[in-house]
C-alpha cells in the first residue's frame, strides 16, 4: 500500500471546501487515488442506472456484476504485485485454460475412470482444486525461475508461456470441450446454489465487521507502542462506521436478490416445501466465487503491506539496484510473485470453468489484457513500486461494470471496445497528470 500523503493544493485548486475535504481524507489516512476511483465507479453506476431505467443498480444486476468480476479480480491481485516489481505476465490466460482443462479432465475422466472414484464423488472437487493449484504454482515457478535466475525478460518468458500453455491445452484435449463438470465443483462458480444464503452471508458480514474493528484497534495499539502519531478518534470511528456500512450494505444487496422463481420452485419441489402464492423467496446471498475473491484480496493486501515478501516487492519495484544492495534476495522475491500469479490463475481457472460448467478450448483468451487493464486503471504504475491490491480489485470492478453495463443497455460491441479503450487511457492519463502535479507541488 502506498502511504497516503496529504496532498497540498496547487494554486489552481484549493477553495475552502476542497481544503477541508482534503484535510478530512488526510485525517482518515485514505489514499486520495482510491477515493477518486470510488467516485468514478459511483458516477459510472449512477449513469448506467439512469440509462437502463433502474436496472443496473437492481440487486440482481449487482449480484451478477459481483460474480462476473470475481475471476478477473482474483487474477488482478497477483498482477498488481507483478507490475509493481517492474515485470509483466502475459501468460495468465493460457495458464488458465491449461489448468482448467486439466481440472476438467481430472473430474470427468481421470478420477472417475482411471482412479475409479466414479462421477460426482464428494472428494473429487477437493482433489481437483489442490492439483490445479499445484499445477498453477509449478507453471508460475518455472516462469519465475527463467525470469529471476536465468534473467530472460518477463515479457519474453510469459509471451512464450502464452503460446506454450495454450498449445499444450490443445494437445491435451485435442480441441474438445469438457462438459458437464462435477456437481460440487460447479458450486465454485456461483449461481444461486453456489451462494451462501442469507444466514451464512450475515455471518460473514459479522466476521468482516469484527475484523475491521480489530484492525482499527490493533493499528492504534501498534502506533502507541512505537510512539507514532495516532489517528484522531473521530477518524477511527468514521472509518469503522464506513467499513461496517459497506460490508452490511453489500450483504444486504446480495440477500435482496431472491432465487430465480424457476429454481426456487424446483428447490421447493425437491424438499417438499409448500410454495406461497407470491412465490418462494429464497435470499441468494454472497456467491462463493465472490467470497473467494474478497478473501484473496484481503490476504494479498496483508501479504503486500504487512509481510516481508510484500515489502520487498515494493522496494524492488521502487529501485531494484537499491533493493539488491540492501541485501534483499530479489531473485527469490521475483520468483515468488510469479508463483503467486500461477496459483491465482489456477483459482480463476476453477471459478471460470465451474461457472461455465465447461472447460473449453478458448477459455481465458485475452484475459491477460483485461487483468493488466484492471491493475492499471486501479493505479498500478508500469514504472514500478506503486500500486495497491484494493485499487486493482476496484479496477476490475470498473472494467466489468463498463462491459456488462453496456451489454445491459444494448451498446454495439464495436462501440463497447472503443469506450473501454478510452476509459483505460484516460484513467491512466488523469492519474499521471495528478501524480506529476503532486510531486511538483
Amino acid at each position, binding site marked *: 500500500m502506498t502511504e497516503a500523503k496529504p496532498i497540498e493544493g496547487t494554486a489552481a485548486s484549493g477553495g475552502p471546501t476542497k481544503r477541508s475535504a482534503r484535510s478530512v481524507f488526510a485525517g482518515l489516512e485514505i489514499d486520495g487515488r482510491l477515493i477518486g476511483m470510488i467516485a468514478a465507479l459511483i458516477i459510472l453506476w449512477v449513469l448506467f442506472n439512469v440509462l437502463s431505467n433502474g436496472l443496473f443498480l437492481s440487486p440482481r*444486476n449487482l449480484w451478477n456484476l459481483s460474480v462476473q468480476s470475481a475471476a478477473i479480480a482474483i487474477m488482478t491481485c497477483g498482477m498488481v504485485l507483478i507490475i509493481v516489481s517492474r515485470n509483466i505476465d502475459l501468460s495468465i490466460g493460457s495458464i488458465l485454460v491449461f489448468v482448467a482443462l486439466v481440472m476438467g479432465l481430472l473430474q470427468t475422466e481421470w478420477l472417475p475412470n482411471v482412479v475409479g472414484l466414479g462421477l460426482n464423488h464428494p472428494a473429487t472437487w477437493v482433489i481437483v482444486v489442490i492439483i490445479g493449484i499445484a499445477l498453477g504454482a509449478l507453471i508460475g515457478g518455472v516462469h519465475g525461475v527463467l525470469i529471476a535466475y536465468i534473467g530472460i525478460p518477463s515479457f519474453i518468458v510469459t509471451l512464450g508461456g502464452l503460446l506454450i500453455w495454450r498449445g499444450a491445452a*490443445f494437445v491435451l484435449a485435442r480441441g474438445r470441450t469438457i462438459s458437464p463438470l462435477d456437481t460440487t465443483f460447479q458450486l465454485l462458480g456461483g449461481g444461486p446454489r453456489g451462494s451462501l444464503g442469507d444466514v451464512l452471508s450475515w455471518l460473514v458480514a459479522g466476521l468482516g465487521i469484527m475484523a475491521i474493528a480489530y484492525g482499527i484497534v490493533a493499528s492504534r495499539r501498534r502506533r502507541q507502542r512505537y510512539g507514532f502519531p495516532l489517528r484522531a478518534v473521530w477518524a477511527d470511528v468514521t472509518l469503522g462506521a464506513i467499513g461496517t456500512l459497506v460490508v452490511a450494505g453489500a450483504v444486504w444487496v446480495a440477500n435482496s436478490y431472491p432465487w430465480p422463481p*424457476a429454481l426456487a420452485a424446483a428447490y421447493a419441489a425437491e424438499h417438499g416445501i409448500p410454495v406461497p402464492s407470491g412465490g418462494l423467496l429464497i435470499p441468494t446471498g454472497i456467491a462463493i466465487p465472490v467470497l473467494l475473491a474478497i478473501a484473496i484480496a484481503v490476504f494479498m493486501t496483508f501479504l503486500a503491506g504487512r509481510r516481508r515478501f510484500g515489502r520487498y516487492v515494493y522496494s524492488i519495484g521502487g529501485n531494484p539496484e537499491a533493493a539488491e544492495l540492501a541485501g534483499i534476495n530479489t531473485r527469490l522475491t521475483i520468483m515468488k510473485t510469479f508463483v503467486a500469479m500461477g496459483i491465482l490463475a489456477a483459482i480463476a481457472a476453477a471459478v471460470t470453468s465451474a461457472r*461455465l460448467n465447461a472447460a473449453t478450448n478458448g477459455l481465458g483468451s485475452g484475459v491477460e489484457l483485461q487483468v493488466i487493464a484492471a491493475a492499471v486503471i486501479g493505479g498500478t504504475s508500469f514504472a514500478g513500486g506503486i500500486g495497491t491490491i484494493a485499487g486493482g480489485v476496484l479496477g476490475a470492478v470498473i472494467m466489468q461494470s463498463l462491459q456488462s453495463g453496456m451489454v445491459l443497455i*444494448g451498446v454495439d460491441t464495436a462501440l463497447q471496445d472503443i469506450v473501454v479503450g478510452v476509459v483505460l487511457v484516460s484513467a491512466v492519463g488523469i492519474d499521471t497528470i495528478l501524480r506529476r502535479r503532486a510531486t511538483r507541488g
Partner: protein
Amino acid sequence: MSIRRTASIMAIAALVFAACGGGGATTAPAATTAPAATTAATAAATACKVGVAWSTFQEERYGLRDEPGIKAALAAGGGEYIGNDAKNNAETQASNVAALIAAGVNVIVINAYDPEAILPSVKAAVDAGIPVIAYDRELENANALFLTHDNVEVGRMIARDVVKAAPTGNYAIIKGDKTQTNPLFLRAGMEEIIAPLIASGDITIPAGAEVDTDGWKAEVAQTSMEQILTANNNDIQAVLSQNDNMATGAVAALKAQGLDKTVKIGAQDGDKFALNRVALGTQVVSVWKDATELGTEAGVAALQLCKDPDISKVAGATASKTTGGLDTSALLLAPIPITQANLQVVLDAKWITEAELCKDVAAGSVTGCP
C-alpha cells in the same frame, strides 16, 4: 499419423525429384505428365492424381474426418491421393502447393490457411491447367470450385427448428466474432426464417438482445446472456446461437436462472457436448456439418475434374459469386439439423459414441439412447 505424413512427404519429395530428373527445368504443364512417364511404381494409378494442401492437422477433424473421406472416395474411383500439411503457416502452404504442382497432380484441393496469401499459388495452379477445389474456405479466383457447407442454410436450419419449438415470444441472438464473414451468412439465413414472424408480431427481438461475441468465446456469451436475461426480467423464450460453444455459455446463464429446460436454444457444429444437450432436451437443435461428407464430395468432384476440368460441369455445382464478386461455381452441401428426432444419424456416422451422446439422459426418454 506422423509415419503416414512422413511417408507422404517423402513420396512428394521423390516425385519432385523424379519430375525434375525426368523433364529437367520444364514448364509446369509439361511437369504434369513427367512423373507418369518416369516413375514406374506409380504409373498404374496415375489416371487421376489428386493433391490436397491441408491447412492444419492440429484440429481434430482434418485427420479424423476430412482426410479419410477424400481418401476413401479417391480409392473407390481409382484415383491417387497425395496430401501435405501447412501447419497453420501461409508460406509453408505456398511451397506445399508448389510441390503438388511439381508432383504432377491432376487436381489440387486447397484448404486455405490464409485465403488471401494463397492466391498466387492458386493462380500458378490454374495457369498450369490444373483444376482447383477451394475446400471449405473461399478462394477469390473464378477458376476455383468452392466446396463448402451452405452456411446460410445452417442459419435457416437453426432458426427453423427453434421457431418450431417456440413459435412466439422474445428471441435473443448470440452472434459470433464480428470480424469474420461467417456470422453474416448465418445471420442472413436466420433472418429469412424469422423476418415474417417479426413482421407479424409473433417474435420480438428486444433491444440489446442481439449481441456479437469476441472470439466466439463461451464465457463472453455467458455474460451477454446473463445481461439479456436481467434486462428482460427473464422474459426470453428462445435463443439463436451461432455455434455450440457459445450455446454452452448461454445455457450456463439459463441454468443459473432455472430456465435451461424451458427456453429453446439452437446452434450449430454437432459438438459432442451440444449433441448431449440435444439428447437431454436443453438444446433444440445442433446443425451438423459432416466433415467426412465434405471430404468424400471433394474426392468425387476431383475424380470428375480429372475427366473434364470445367468446374461448372461438376455434378451439383451451381453458378455463384465469390465475396469479391467473381463469377464462379460452388458446390454447397446441405448440413443436417440434429434434433431429438434423428440422433441416430450421428451415431451411425460414428461421430459420437452412445455413451457420450446419452450421458445423464433418462432411460427411454429419446430414441437413440437406451
